């Protein structure tokens, strides 16, 4: 009995001594807070915070060179946890989600040429600015759908990208990959959007798209403080968009849509049943 205790104790002691010595020799100091922060972060390594993955963001957080709300997928609860770990006061940010500002799928919008090649928007864009006549329209080749880490984007049968408001975490990867910058970040609460991204004059837009914004100002006249027109393209002012819905019926090309009522046709997403409260 004594022999077993002594022998195991001896091996243990010997091991402890060598490890103690080795620990000093190979010491690499790692801030425990960095590990804790890394645990809390979603780990999607999406790069929305501007760092190559969550580890980079955790390191910067501990070094204090970046504030806490730079991780959109994490959302508010990650911010509060990080604040707790780092012992810093947290400023929560409003949730942002991505929206494809276009309805011009291959049936509604005109194609400049028959594109044969890679199923990829960036690749198609390199050939004479993409197969779609409209300079800002969604090419519908699915680059955003493939890159979305949260499976929040679908392609309709006629080649239009649609983003689900519920699944989108706002990590901005689709915004970065879209060669036509047709995906914009918008506040989660506002469901009404002008679905067009073309600054051409009305007459030109009518020629290549049935649902494009022709810059006719009717929406601005109907709800003056919810819309603004910048060289022939209407845009919702998201801070005061409570009555923006009134202009939907008046828009001659049915270009404005409320995502709380329905998604563009051909999409399989359904609007959330409960009506989301609008921003105060």
């Amino acid at each position, binding site marked *: 009995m004594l022999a077993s205790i002594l*022998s*195991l104790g001896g*091996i243990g002691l010997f091991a402890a001594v060598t490890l103690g010595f080795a620990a000093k020799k190979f010491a690499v100091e790692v801030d425990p807070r960095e590990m804790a922060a890394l645990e809390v972060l979603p780990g999607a390594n999406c790069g929305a915070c501007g760092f190559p993955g969550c580890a980079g963001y955790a390191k910067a957080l501990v070094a204090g060179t970046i504030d806490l709300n730079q991780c959109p997928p994490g959302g508010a609860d990650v911010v509060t946890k990080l604040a707790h770990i780092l012992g810093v006061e947290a400023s929560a940010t409003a949730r942002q989600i991505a929206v494809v500002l276009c309805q011009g799928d291959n049936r509604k919008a005109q194609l400049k040429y028959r594109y044969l090649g890679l199923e990829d928007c960036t690749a198609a864009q390199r050939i004479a600015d993409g197969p779609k006549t409209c300079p800002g329209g969604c090419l519908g080749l699915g680059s955003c759908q493939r890159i979305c880490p949260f499976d929040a984007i679908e392609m309709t049968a006629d080649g239009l990208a649609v983003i689900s408001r519920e699944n989108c975490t706002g990590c901005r990867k689709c915004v970065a990959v879209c060669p036509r910058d047709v995906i914009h970040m918008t506040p989660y609460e506002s469901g009404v959007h002008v679905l067009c991204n073309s600054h051409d004059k009305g007459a030109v837009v009518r020629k290549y798209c049935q649902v494009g914004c022709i810059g006719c100002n009717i929406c601005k006249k109907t709800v003056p403080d919810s819309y603004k027109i910048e060289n022939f393209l209407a845009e919702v002012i998201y801070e005061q968009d409570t009555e923006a819905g009134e202009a939907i019926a008046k828009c001659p090309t049915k270009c404005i849509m409320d995502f709380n009522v329905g998604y563009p046709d051909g999409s399989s997403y359904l609007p959330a049943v409960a009506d989301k409260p609008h921003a105060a």
Partner: protein
Amino acid sequence: MAELLLILVSAIFVNNFVLARFLGICPFLGVSKKVETALGMGMAVTFVMTVATVVTWFVQYFVLIPFGIEYLQTIAFILVIASLVQLVEMVIQKVSPVLYQSLGIFLPLITTNCAVLGLAVLNIQKDYTFLEGVVFAIGAALGFTLALVLFAGLRERLELSAVPQSFRGTAIALVTAGLLSLAFMGFAGMVKG
């Protein structure tokens, strides 16, 4: 000498630790995403196995048997292996942080890796002399590394194939591992294992 060579070859091919004896499957599946990581893991396991065999052999024949406490074999072996893994972990973290990051949790997990403990126990059961034990350990480790690297090569190739959605990731890895061990069955019976 021929005897040692036979042990080596049988440990690498015929009774491969992973593909024939099915020991050490969790790192086999966990660390085989990239060939570099697999090689790193292979080296780490080779070091731990070889040194562990040496130490456990001494512990068995100079501590456990003289004091008649063979029943403590498992605890003692685990203690030795654990401290060795701790040492390897420190060295790798210092020498190559990238490898340390990519191995992640699987580096400390070598402690509970059944291949390592299995090797130490098998050494004793087969009554190998000290030299045979070490050769067997090197063979086992090389066999483990061979299987791991082959499997990592296959999985890197699967990155490029159009694996259906429901099979992506571990599912296709398990199917491929099955077929790989099927291929290794060819070596069965080649040497009296």
